[in-house]
């Protein structure tokens, strides 16, 4: 599923920093005596998107939609079955080595406890990346100290500590410092604030905003929390069952939501007004299992406005009212044609 050519033309003006093309990953399910693959989990199914310089691209979706797998495919922690990654117009494998990609695209993980080696001190953890890339040890240590200050932790108090001695919010700051240590241009934040208390989350989000401005960073912000993505992102991708169902600028995604799944997802957020509580379930059933996805439009079994065509024909991403806003739905596409 690729973006419309008109949007690609407008993006060529400032070329995307990262391009993901038709990336696919199926996880085989092995069974039987010799572990032959009988079926696959179709985690990510041929998605394509761009990340522009200095933007924050949000990726939202529920469990099983493939957003975390996508993050790992970008940095090749999982090898894609098909597709290409291009960084700064250089393709991984031909004119871009894996090491160069990894230096430029770093990841901040979710579970902050398992994301730090319990046997290494904080400064050793942060210094590890630069040392791997050839930075002399003393310099790497000083770099670690500088980064600790930058993320709001006093190096004198924290450099020699171990992960089990610091709090969740502090561990996430260390995670961010570690990602910054190799001086990347893109940082992927995979549910990085999901496990934190709301007040700590606010502190970490402020830190991310400050760092982005100061260091001229580009973010890919993955979350299941729509409020956080609305706050942080410039553009948003909505994923469902391994595919992109909607993409566009954040304001129009939230104000003029096109795809029925995105609409249901937004309607599922708890109300903040005690006088107007939610009365109906917007999205019934469970997030589906990506082993045998439904035919045609994958959302059709749960869709409130599905028509017969939705079962047989898979919708492509069609342009919506606002520029750069696309959705994969037959019904909204039809609406567009009447314009």
């Amino acid at each position, binding site marked *: 599923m690729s973006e419309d050519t008109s949007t690609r033309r407008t993006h060529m003006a400032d070329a995307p920093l990262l391009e993901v093309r038709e990336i696919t990953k199926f996880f085989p399910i092995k069974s039987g005596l010799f572990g032959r693959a009988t079926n696959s989990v179709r985690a990510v199914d041929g998605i394509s998107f761009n990340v522009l310089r200095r933007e924050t691209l949000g990726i939202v979706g529920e469990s099983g939609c493939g957003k975390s797998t996508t993050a*790992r495919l970008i*940095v090749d*922690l999982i090898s894609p079955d098909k597709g290409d990654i291009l960084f700064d117009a250089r393709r991984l494998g031909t004119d871009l080595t*894996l*090491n160069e990609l*990894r*230096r430029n695209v*770093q*990841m901040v*993980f*979710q*579970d902050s406890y*398992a*994301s*730090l*080696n*319990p*046997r*290494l*001190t904080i400064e050793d*953890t942060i210094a*590890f*990346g630069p040392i*791997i*890339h050839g930075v002399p040890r003393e*310099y790497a*240590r*000083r*770099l670690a*100290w*500088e980064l600790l200050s930058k993320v709001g932790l006093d*190096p*004198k*108090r924290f*450099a*020699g*500590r*171990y992960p*089990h*001695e610091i709090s969740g919010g502090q561990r996430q700051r260390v*995670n961010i410092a*570690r990602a910054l240590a*190799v001086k990347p241009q893109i940082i992927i934040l995979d549910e990085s604030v999901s496990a934190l208390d709301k007040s700590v989350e606010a502190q970490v989000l402020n830190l991310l905003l400050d760092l982005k401005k100061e260091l001229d960073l580009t973010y890919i912000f993955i979350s299941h929390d729509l409020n956080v993505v609305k706050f942080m992102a410039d553009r948003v991708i909505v994923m469902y069952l391994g595919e992109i169902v909607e993409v566009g600028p954040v304001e129009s995604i939230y104000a003029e939501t096109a795809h029925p799944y995105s609409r249901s997802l937004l309607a599922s957020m708890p109300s903040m007004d005690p006088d107007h509580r939610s009365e109906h379930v917007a999205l019934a059933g469970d997030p589906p299992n990506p082993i045998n996805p439904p035919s045609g439009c994958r959302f059709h079994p749960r869709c409130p406005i599905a028509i017969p065509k939705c079962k047989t024909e898979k919708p492509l991403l069609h342009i919506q009212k606002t520029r750069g806003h696309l959705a994969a739905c037959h019904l909204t596409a039809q609406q567009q044609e009447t314009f």
Partner: protein
Amino acid sequence: MIEQKTIPLDEYTRSPSYWAIVLRRFSRDKVAMFALAIIILLFLVAVFAPYIAPADPLKGSMLRRLRPIGTPGLPLGADELGRDMLSRLIYGARLSLFMGITPVAIAFVIGSSIGIAAGYLGGLFNSLTMRTNDIFYAFPSVLLAIALSGALGAGVTSGLLSLTIVFIPPTARVAESVTTQVRKLDYVEAAKASGANNFTIIRVHVLGNVLGPIFVYSTSLISVSMILAAGLSFLGLGVKPPEPEWGLMLNTLRNAIYVQPWLAALPGVMIFMTSIAFNLVSDGLRSAMDIKS
């Protein structure tokens, strides 16, 4: 810009390292420390045997056969060939401890290497190695030890060899399982995402987190090793007479149970005490290493 100044170490809080914390926690565990004291005592007894033992463990006298405990000149009695029991027990510590620890130590090195490699690399290598491992693991250890010893012949070296082979599979299994768990953790993925190669990742991130649990498991095998070695000697494999070794002594004193039961039980008491001490130390280590609780 980073200033080129040296960082004085006393200027920043450096927490005690993991092993320092483990040692501190261990030292607070009274039971474990007591057991450790017993083991150290046994070691000293074994090392200084020639100076401590009152008599020659190999010199017997038919006149003094099966003297009871407390006989003047024979504090723990004499065995079926008239040899001083106390001296034989003291000298026996040497071989028994040796047969207990050496196979486990060698198996630790070999088993960990196999297991960590299999656990980290996964895939076909893992399947091949671990399934082969399972074949050996399927044999009950006593049977396997006897079979191997029987094939290799009696004697200390072959006894050591067969015991080492018996202990490699369980060690490898534990190593593989712990490594597989650690490999999936986010910090290993983060290290990969930093661009480190496999060797560096294993050295910096995996080993430190994996060797601990494997080591604790291995210490729990020491008592098993002692008992198996004693068993082998009892059956006539392993240590050959007249060498003093607790298991062998149990064998030769078998018939004395009807005449001097307390005497005949003495080597068993030593085996029992030493095994328990090693197990308690192993338990203590495991609790000390469990920092999160």
